[in-house]
């Protein structure tokens, strides 16, 4: 299987993530979709890493996962604090800052 296939799959997964961010209103699901995007990038890293015979790509994935974990922790904490104010996690309703 050539790199093209893996990269193509990665691009598709990334796109699904982007579309998800665009069409879902639930902040938590938007967040999941962002995780999907990061994962698509991970897939690209690992595929390229194998193609190049270079281990750094796999190490990057490790770092990205750490970052993702940290991001999720903070993101969910912020979403919880928004929920405390508004009883909703619907991003359409969180729009008092605008203009």
């Amino acid at each position: 299987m050539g790199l093209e296939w893996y990269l193509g799959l990665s691009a598709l997964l990334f796109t699904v993530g982007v579309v998800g961010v665009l069409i879902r209103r639930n902040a938590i699901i938007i967040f999941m979709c962002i995780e999907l995007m990061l994962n698509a990038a991970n897939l690209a890293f690992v595929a390229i890493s194998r193609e190049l015979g270079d281990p750094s790509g796999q190490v990057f994935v490790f770092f990205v996962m750490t970052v993702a974990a940290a991001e999720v922790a903070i993101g969910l904490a912020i979403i919880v604090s928004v929920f405390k104010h508004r009883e909703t996690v619907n991003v359409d309703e969180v729009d008092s800052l605008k203009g």
Partner: protein
Amino acid sequence: MTVPVINWHMLMPELVIVLTFVIVMVFDLFKSIRKSVLAWVTIVGSAIALWASVEMLHAGVIGNEFNGMLRVDRFSMFFNIIFLVSTILVTLISINYLDRNDKRQGEYYVLILLATLGMMLMASGNELIVVFLGLELMSLSLYVLAGYFRSIQVSSEAGMKYLLLGAFASGFFLYGIALIYGGAGTTSIPEIASELEAGGKSPLMLAGMFLLIVGFGFKVALVPFHQWAPDVYEGAPTPIAAFISAGPKAAGFAAFLRIFTGALESLQPEWIVVVVILAALTMTVGNVIATAQSNIKRMLAYSSVAHAGYVLVGLAAANKDGISSAMLYLFIYCVMNIGAFAAVILARTEDGENLRIADYAGLGFRKPLLALFMTIMLLSLAGFPPTAGFVGKFYVFRSAVDAGHTWLVVVAAINTAISAFYYLRVVVTMYMKEPEEELDFHAYPSLLVFALLLVTIGVVLIGVLPSYFLAPAQISTQFF
């Protein structure tokens, strides 16, 4: 390859910051220690790191630490100075702000220090993944800081918006790194450069390069990736809005410069096109929307969007002159923008923050010192001589003209005129309008006045002695 030998002295600024936040965390555990001590520890630590950076800039230290992951040179030291000056000023203006709002403080300062560390890593990262991690370290700390006042509804909202949009942009940035990794076979900046010299441009590289622009463009708020900025600045605690407008913007440009003039130099004709378009868009959209704002924080947010556009004008020149003038501009911008936000904090009434521009009516006579500070900052932002803002714009525009981007400078000049309109509107409001109602302005907290005084002196000093500040920027571009 063995475990790298670490030259500790090359990492002085970073290590001092690490030590400082450890001390802050430990001090925070003791209830008996007054909370303002934490701020002072932060300031002293940052000041020591600043001193170390200045010394290293002066000495011209050069090193590739951690197997070439970290590049220590004058360039990174110059940006370290910008970050640390911003950190010190922001901490100074935070002390009273936090006391008034009665918030937990230990975490606040630790997060500011961590964000600073992230910025420093972005400026010295010699490997895309280090830049990415630095960016994430900075961003994560800032997401929390933006939403720090969780009891205030807009603060949480600002945190959430910043986080969702920031994480989204990070996804693109990461994908860009992956593509470059595939295109060049490495993520080390010098190695990418040599790979690119050998190989041609590929769709992979071009796309990867653009996605990096997206990542940085988000952090520095370029149009069309800027829309988070006004909302976040308005909702975030004011000192944090100042911080977000200063340090991260400089850090984004630092990494952008290192990567695009280091690794992607041979693609210069390709990226300059986009830089020029983004510069024109960013300046115009930022300034035009700023004219329609009635909230001063939002106005400053749009103005800071526009200022990123001016920096891009310098980058578009993409030579030594252009880059050094853009670096000087960033320094100037950080100082004066923090000053402007500090003046906003100072203009508070007993009821709370005073963010409507209309509320500034009559300040010129009622609060002459505050009005004077605000006026100087706004004039500097608008680029009037003899302030720093003028000098910065002048160098940037000149280098762009020299590099042949005449029409871009024409756009920039028109934008400067537009910006003068909305900055001066505030000045006119302060000095020429009668207040609609009597507002009970808060007494001046001396620390805030002190910070503003520092900034004012700095703004005037740079305006009067620009070459002393340009020279370090010029020698810091030597690695290109």
